[in-house]
């Protein structure tokens, strides 16, 4: 089996996912095009050199619908011979796109592939693509469907994380992200989004609030209490985990991932492709895995998938220098730390989606790049990237510098 190497990665800054966000004026197609074009330009990729473009989009409807990957590839000027495919595994779509790209290379069928993702949450809207899971009684009822925030609160309740615990974690995320920007740790990979005249629309992540404190977070009311009580999800939560008397609602906008617009992409290829196009490999994909986990708690999949990945790859926690777990909600990360007894200094060291935002389909590709940059900056070797996923799933990838 061939090795799949990571040659480069880029991402856009993340714009606030609202009508007043800087990227709201940028179409989903234009947004998805940015990292593809950047990869082409930075690496001098000849026309038609890429075998496939795989992009994760979680709400692939409206302007983000009907296989945006093909059209972003065309718009980026990758060449008309470059096809594209859009995939969706909810929040891990971007990482799965990278894994699928790696699999194409490993199987020897493709030489150079781009995996990434794009999500214009301000324009398309979360949940716009509908779906049977929450709506169809034959699925929603047996799967104990609840909104993810309620599942996150259920995790906090079951594993004993208090409001202080989740808030402290959120403050840390903000501080780490602020410091990372201050020290220029993201500079290598963030490409500004520009208009048709070359004028910069956004160059820096827009959602962060590095000055966040415990006191400022304490002002925020829990976000999911009313939805859970009015919508019946409080009862669903308790029935899914009857050892709980009632859900302790601890999550709010300040300790949950931010809604943002953004796109990211990773260039992967075989050793041969690297030599052919004069690219220097930065890391290789060591292993990856997917898993389904308990759908009610929904967001504990990273624990299950990491166990699966460790078992398959014969690795253990101590073999991993840095962990990058998407900060969908603070309790997701705290549970992961608790399950593997990970040193807090080795996980999400440059902050995460609580501070920077979570452009659903793009995040997986973005955080893989972030941790690769950090491995290089600190001269470390191995990182594990993972995300929790709607419906109860987990995707994880281990990368190793070469």
């Amino acid at each position, binding site marked *: 089996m061939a090795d799949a190497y990571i040659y480069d990665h880029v991402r856009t800054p993340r714009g606030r996912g609202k009508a007043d966000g800087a990227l709201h004026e940028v179409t989903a197609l234009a947004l998805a095009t940015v990292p593809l074009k950047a990869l082409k330009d930075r690496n001098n990729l000849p026309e038609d050199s890429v075998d496939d473009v795989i992009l994760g989009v979680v709400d692939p409807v409206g302007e983000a619908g009907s296989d945006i990957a093909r059209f972003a590839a065309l718009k980026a000027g990758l060449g008309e011979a470059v096809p594209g495919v859009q995939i969706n595994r909810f929040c891990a779509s971007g990482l799965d796109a990278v894994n699928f790209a790696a699999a194409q290379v490993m199987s020897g069928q493709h030489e150079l592939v781009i995996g990434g993702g794009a999500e214009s949450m301000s324009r398309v809207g979360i*949940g716009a693509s*509908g779906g049977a899971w*929450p*709506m*169809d*009684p*034959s699925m*929603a*009822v*047996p799967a*104990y*469907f*609840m*909104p993810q925030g309620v599942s996150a609160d259920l995790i906090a309740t079951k594993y004993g994380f208090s409001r202080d615990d989740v808030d402290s974690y959120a403050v840390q995320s903000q501080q780490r992200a602020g410091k990372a920007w201050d020290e220029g740790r993201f500079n290598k990979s963030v490409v500004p989004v520009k208009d048709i005249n070359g004028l910069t629309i956004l160059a820096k992540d827009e959602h962060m609030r590095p000055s966040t404190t415990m006191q400022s977070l304490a002002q925020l009311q829990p976000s999911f209490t009313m939805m859970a009580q*009015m*919508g*019946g*999800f*409080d*009862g*669903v939560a*308790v*029935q899914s*985990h*009857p*050892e*709980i*008397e*009632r859900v302790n609602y601890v999550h709010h906008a300040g300790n949950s991932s931010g809604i943002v617009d953004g796109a990211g992409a990773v260039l992967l290829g075989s050793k041969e492709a690297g030599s052919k196009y004069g690219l220097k490999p930065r890391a290789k994909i060591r292993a990856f895995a997917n898993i389904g986990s308990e759908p009610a708690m929904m967001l504990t999949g990273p624990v299950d998938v990491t166990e699966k990945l460790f078992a398959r790859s014969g690795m253990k926690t101590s073999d991993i220098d840095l962990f990058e777990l998407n900060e969908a909600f603070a309790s997701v990360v705290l549970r992961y730390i608790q399950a593997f007894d990970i040193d807090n200094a080795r996980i999400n060291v440059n902050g995460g989606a609580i501070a920077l935002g979570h452009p659903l389909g793009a995040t997986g590709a973005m955080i893989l790049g972030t941790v690769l940059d950090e491995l290089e900056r600190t001269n470390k070797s191995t990182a594990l990237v993972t995300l929790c996923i709607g419906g109860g799933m987990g995707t994880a990838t281990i990368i190793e510098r070469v």
Partner: protein
Amino acid sequence: MAYKNFKVETDSDGIALVTWDIPGRSMNVLDETSTSELDAIVKATTADAAVKGVVITSAKEAFCAGADLSMLEGMNQAYAKVFGEQGETAANQMLFDQSRRFSQVLRSIETSGKPWAAAINGLALGGGFEITLCCHYRVAAENPRTRLGLPEVKVGLFPGAGGTQRVPRLVPPQDAMTILLKGDPVTIEKAKALNLIHAIVPAADLVKAAKDWIKGGGKAVAPWDEKGFKLPGGPVFSKAGMMMFPAGNAIYRRETYDNYPAARAIMSCVYEGLQLPIDAALRVESRYFTSVLRSKEAAAMIRSLFLSMQELNKGARRPKDVPATKVKKVAVIGAGFMGASVGYVSARAGLDVVLIDRDQESADKGKAHAQKVIEDQIKKGRAKPTDAEALLARITPTADYAALKDVDLVIEAVFEDRKVKAETFAKAQEYLKPDVIFASNTSTLPITSLAEGFKDQGKFVGIHFFSPVEKMMLVEIIKGKNTGDVALATALDYVRQIGKTPIVVNDSRGFFANRCVGRYVAEGNEMFLEGVPPAMIENCAKMAGMPVGPLSLSDEVALDLGLKIMKATEADLGPNAINPDQKKLMVEMVEKQGRLGRKNSKGFYDYPEKGKGQKSLWPGLSALQPKQLDPDTLDIEELKQRFLVVQAVEAARTVEDHVITDPREADVGSILGFGFAPFTGGTLSYIDFMGTKKFVELCHKLEAKYGSRFTPPKLLEDMAAKGETFYGRFAPKKAAAA
């Protein structure tokens, strides 16, 4: 053509008036004959060029009370027959075809091309209401008592003749879901406001109004058959739909614990059906209807909650030779909490009540209780101020036993103490008319031995009410060894007069209901001592189908009372009759911690002051558990099973002990008396539908793990060996119904 159940008269305007009037019945119910005749009428009127339109009404006080559910028993038998002969697929196909026939007849009305108007003269429920929904126009006669609705879900079914499709095409989804899932009928004013009916007119003008609508050019097309029809709540996959369905699914689970397939089927019918044109939608509804008809929940609920309950209410267990009695005046001795409530429900039913206590003040207090209850009813709109006056005028509080001289029935509800009771009997006896029946409302003392203190034991009977009496629909009638038929008949007639459901049980400690529910509470304590998290005990009990968790129920009953009963049982039957660890737990709670339950706001739960939040499990509980088990290692299904099995096996013992002689009474009694998982059909139906053999195996499995409280009685072993069921071996005598 002449019909048996309908009369069809076509007037000079060419409007056919179809009047439903089943001979020999006080109400129209939907049966096979009515369905076939309605089918024939639709065909005939559609084919007859002289008929311009059709008005359907009823000659009874009500329009139609719904389907004759005993018809389903015939369908079940046919299903079993085809299943046996041709296999499951053929049987399912037969059931699908048969069970959707009525739905198809209704659809043929809707698409007949002739305008049909429903002249709703009174109550229209279930299939009766569905007939009106397929008509192109619905007009109701003014009558504050008329109710319209689809109560099928209450007996484990759902409106399978278009109800789940036409209602959400007429009213917004939230209202539609309430109508379908709660099954509570609405007044005609509400129905009009919801757009379920078009008009309300004075009763005298009803048929004319319906005819006028036809003459005025009433359109023979349902709104959903017109191009461009829009759902009142918008498409399923719309912003509004996304607000509605996920929450609807969650609320369904929160309220039902997903134990009721019919309710789930309603959700699916609405979700899937609203995405389809009406004909396909009706076909999908029929598929779900077939699947619900095949469910054991529907079979169990129809039998217990509809058929058996009706039979018991009609006096299935009443000695036939005793002429009907009517209690005009009842005396209640002991005007405490129970006595006062018994007085209230009697007076509410129109009986004169003498409320006796040791002094006037105590007796007055009992009457004051009645006043408070009726005032609450008025506030809730369930009674009129004039009802209160009349009711209170019927209650005479007194300390004078001489007031017993002209009563027809005496019910004593004095303190649960043999000596106090004996004194009461002695005092009362001197004033009673010769044939007066004397009843004790004791919940703990055996009736046979109590009767010994009464001069004519044949006239002594137990009438055991459940608390709160105003709400609890069950009354246990206890036959002592020497209780005579007249006493039994009188007690049954009285219970019928006050509108409650009686079960007749033979004498035993705890009779029937308290024996079973006692096991339930004790099982909760056992789990607590094993180290199951208290919340898990409570939630699993509710997930099993019980209305209240066992720890919560202990709190409601009062922990000190529980301890007292435990001590009394120990004193009477010896130390082996109770679990010493449970006693230790209760002693700790009551005597050391001062936690008496709801009554002092401290029990297994902490109770905040009214309006200051919900009750919460007392955080000190875990310190009283010898160990704590990791919930992730516990088998939730087994916890749920333990709660139901421990009660069902006790119910089986009551059959072996001849306390229960008719399985209907154990089933109805367990559901009405202590809320035993209604979807099972009751304690004995739970066993029958699981299969006696499988149940006995489950008992043995639980016995091996948890002890002899799960040991099945010999009767069950015997039944399992012979492949018998309770309803087979102890088949109720149906003919007894009056």
